[in-house]
């Protein structure tokens, strides 16, 4: 490692910081992709995580630590404890990523299977190891493909059990959380629009299509295609933006200053 040139060393450090892997793994990944950072990231994220050995009994113990007193699952209290153990605020988006790994059905609770299965797939069986995995989990949000999966997962996770749609307030909260990671300039207007005009629950199709909208249509709406098969609600949003002068002549005016 000492023989690495300055440029390469920087790259290794970058790689480690972003992916949270060890120096050795970073070096190997970069070498394999001929010292192209982008290529190394692609390769890294597309391969499955190396399955490291997890101790089943330790996982069992860990589960029992958080398990609810009356039900065979981890509920709100347990989650609070977990969060403080791994030094993460329970509103932190990392908890969403963790839930995603666990394939959790609903927010604020983990079944035994979800908890243990999730930790196993991450290759951790202790609080310390979990804590170490946190930067990695954060980094996953930067990957386009994974972000989409997490985003779409969030819909099912955040909605009430037995409901088909997601309550508006919850949806807005989730959007604000998610779009803080992946900056979308129109997110505030979107939330305001929904509260003013829509006031109903959000369907799954609308939820998933919104991400596509945010990704493909530029904030000036210059490439918005009215025949683009966007959900009706999004079409209404565009009308709303134009009506209220937020988008004028293809310019996103600083509406917030006027109001």
């Amino acid at each position, binding site marked *: 490692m000492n023989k690495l040139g300055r440029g390469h060393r920087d790259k290794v450090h970058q790689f480690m910081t972003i992916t949270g892997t060890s120096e050795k793994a970073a070096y190997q990944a970069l070498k394999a992709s001929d010292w192209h950072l982008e290529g190394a990231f692609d390769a890294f994220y597309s391969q499955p995580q190396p399955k490291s050995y997890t101790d089943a009994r330790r996982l069992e113990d860990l589960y029992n630590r958080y398990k609810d007193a009356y039900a065979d699952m981890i509920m709100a209290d347990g989650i609070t404890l977990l969060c403080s153990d791994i030094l993460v605020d329970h509103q932190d988006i990392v908890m969403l990523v963790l839930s995603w790994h666990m394939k959790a059905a609903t927010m604020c609770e983990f079944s035994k299977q979800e908890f243990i299965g999730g930790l196993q797939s991450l290759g951790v069986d202790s609080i310390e190891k979990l804590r170490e995995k946190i930067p990695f989990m954060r980094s996953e949000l930067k990957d386009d493909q994974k972000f989409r999966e997490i985003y779409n997962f969030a819909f099912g996770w955040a909605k009430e059990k037995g409901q088909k749609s997601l309550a508006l307030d919850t949806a807005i909260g989730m959007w604000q959380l998610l779009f803080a990671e992946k900056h979308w300039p129109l997110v505030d207007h979107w939330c305001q629009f929904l509260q003013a005009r829509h006031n109903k629950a959000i369907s799954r199709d609308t939820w998933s299509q919104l991400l596509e909208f945010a990704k493909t249509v530029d904030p000036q709406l210059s490439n918005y295609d009215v025949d683009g098969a966007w959900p*009706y609600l999004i*079409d209404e949003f565009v009308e709303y933006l134009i009506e209220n002068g937020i988008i004028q002549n293809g310019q996103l005016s600083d509406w917030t200053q006027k109001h």
Partner: protein
Amino acid sequence: MNSSNQKKRNFQIEAFKHKVVVDPKYADKTWKILEHAITEIYNHNASGLSFEELYRNAYNMVLHKFGEKLYSGLVGTMTLHLQEMAKTIEAAQGNLFLEELNRKWNDHNKALQMIRDILMYMDRTFIPSNRKTPVHELGLNLWRDNVIHSSKIQTRLLDTLLELIQKERTGEIINRGLMRNIIKMLMDLGSSVYQEDFEKHFLEVSADFYRAESQDFIECCDCGDYLKKAERRLNEEIERVSLYLDSKSETKITNVVEKEMIASHMLRLVHMDNSGLVNMLIDDKYEDLGRMYNLFRRVPNGLPTIRDVMTSHLRETGKQLVTDAEKLKDPVEFVQCLLNEKDKYDKIINLAFSNDKTFQNALNSSFEYFINLNPRSPEFISLFVDEKLRKGLKGVSEEDVETILDKVMMLFRYLQEKDVFEKYYKQHLAKRLLSGKTVSDDAERSLIVKLKTECGYQFTSKLEGMFTDMKTSQDTMQGFYAAYAAELGDSPTLVVQVLTTGSWPTQPSITCNLPAEMSALCEKFRSYYLGTHTGRRLSWQTNMGTADLKAIFGKGQKHELNVSTYQMCVLMLFNSADRLSYKEIEQATEIPSSDLRRCLQSLACVKGKNVLRKEPMSKDIGEEDAFFVNDKFTSKFYKVKIGTVVAQKESEPEKQETRQRVEEDRKPQIEAAIVRIMKSRRVLDHNNIIAEVTKQLQSRFLANPGEIKKRIESLIERDFLERDSSDRRLYRYLA
């Protein structure tokens, strides 16, 4: 003959050998004879000549190889004679010029004929083999070159001809026979002569003439007159051609007239104030319109011009018609106006535009445009039909009934929102059937059949169900009375119509309290009916019935009152009470309050029908009002009609409600269409779904793309469809 002691030789018949001495002067001499003959011929002295001798001379010349001399001699002589003739012609004064020319031409033709006959041998032998121009043709060419194209004649001839034509155009009489001969002469000389020496100039001059004339006319004539003049000129030119020009000139000269008189002024004519196309349409000027059609048809873009102006005028008047507040007050009047407008234009297209299909299409598209501008058109058309079927068609012959119904169907076809019409039609039909107020059962059924033919079985199945219910109810009543004949002797007569829910327009109703006599009877019917139809449920629609009451008033006046069921319930109360307050009536009958108020108003506040008296005498019904039988009630009729359930134009809130119901009904239809399409296509992109769904639903209503989108999303929610994972504009059917 040889003597016999000559040497023996082969017996041959040898060709005639005239041991003619080839006299060098022979040819000259012979030629001189012929030349002289030609001169004599031109001098009208042919009678002294011997045809046979001349023919022989010519023949000999050719035979003895003097064809060339003969031919060139001919050319020379003829040329000289023609030049002389030309001089004579040139010398002719004024009008005699053409006559002289004609005369000389005839002379020349006669001479040419004789000359040709004489020189026939040369014509047939020497000329073809030496590729010379045959005699007749030669004669024509020489005439052309020496006479027609002579410098003094050429221009004068053309000018004279054109001058004569100009004279004729300005009304003078000219010698047409002479013209014909001269023109024929030019034609005989070859089509290029005709064209170059006459036709070309004729067309140019005519163009100038008509250009100027049309300019004059258009300044001073109105459209109709102008067209008459143009038509006359056109016919004149056609006649001119047939009388003395080459028939091939007809198209060319008519093109000139068409261009100068019609095409150049087309727009100005059509848009002329007070007399243009629009005025003609308004005033039904069939003759003028027909003339315009026939003339404009000849020029490029002529008919489209007429069509466009007609279309925009129609759309404008149609738009005014459907937005005219006055007309909209009376739906029947409104529809009648539409029909009148259609009749008017049908007649115009028939009489003036020779049933031109493109005009009919323009008419149809215009009607479709403005009828749909007014969202109440479907309702009004149904009301029109209702009026006709209730009374308007009384006494009308079957044929005329069919005609009117066909006209209604024609308006129906223009509607974009046919489902709205269906809704209203059903409501109005229900009222007609239940009140027994239909003029002709046959007419009703005939219209249903027409609707079925137009829109398919689905459209009319419920309507037909309504008719079936009526018939079945009749049978049921018969059965009921047969079964209970003995018991029902004294009871009031009950007539029940059993309506199948789903076929009839739905109206939620609370059953009111019927008078005792009636409710007992109704119960008997109910048990009878349910006895034969187990598993069904009957609910009395007291807001739709009628009753006939026999009443005796204070002074002994007897009347038969024809009232609604609600009114009957109210009136029957007065059999056991003299005075009743509003509240008491309400309690006893349980009629919903808004209906009750309307009911009491019709019984107590309408002049001529006030069988009840109200205190106080105000128009409105107050909670504290008291009611009495009006003992002083009078009417000149024995039968007094108070309650009728007649179809009428909806009030604003009713209209909103109906519109809402229509919109609600459309949602499942849109979804069904989407599912049908996706089931067969499996995968389809967004724009194509919208297009296909719109097309499928077109016969009922115009589907809104936004609504279709919402339905698609609803179907995605319910897992009928999903978006494709890679192309978000693609939808997939989920089995």
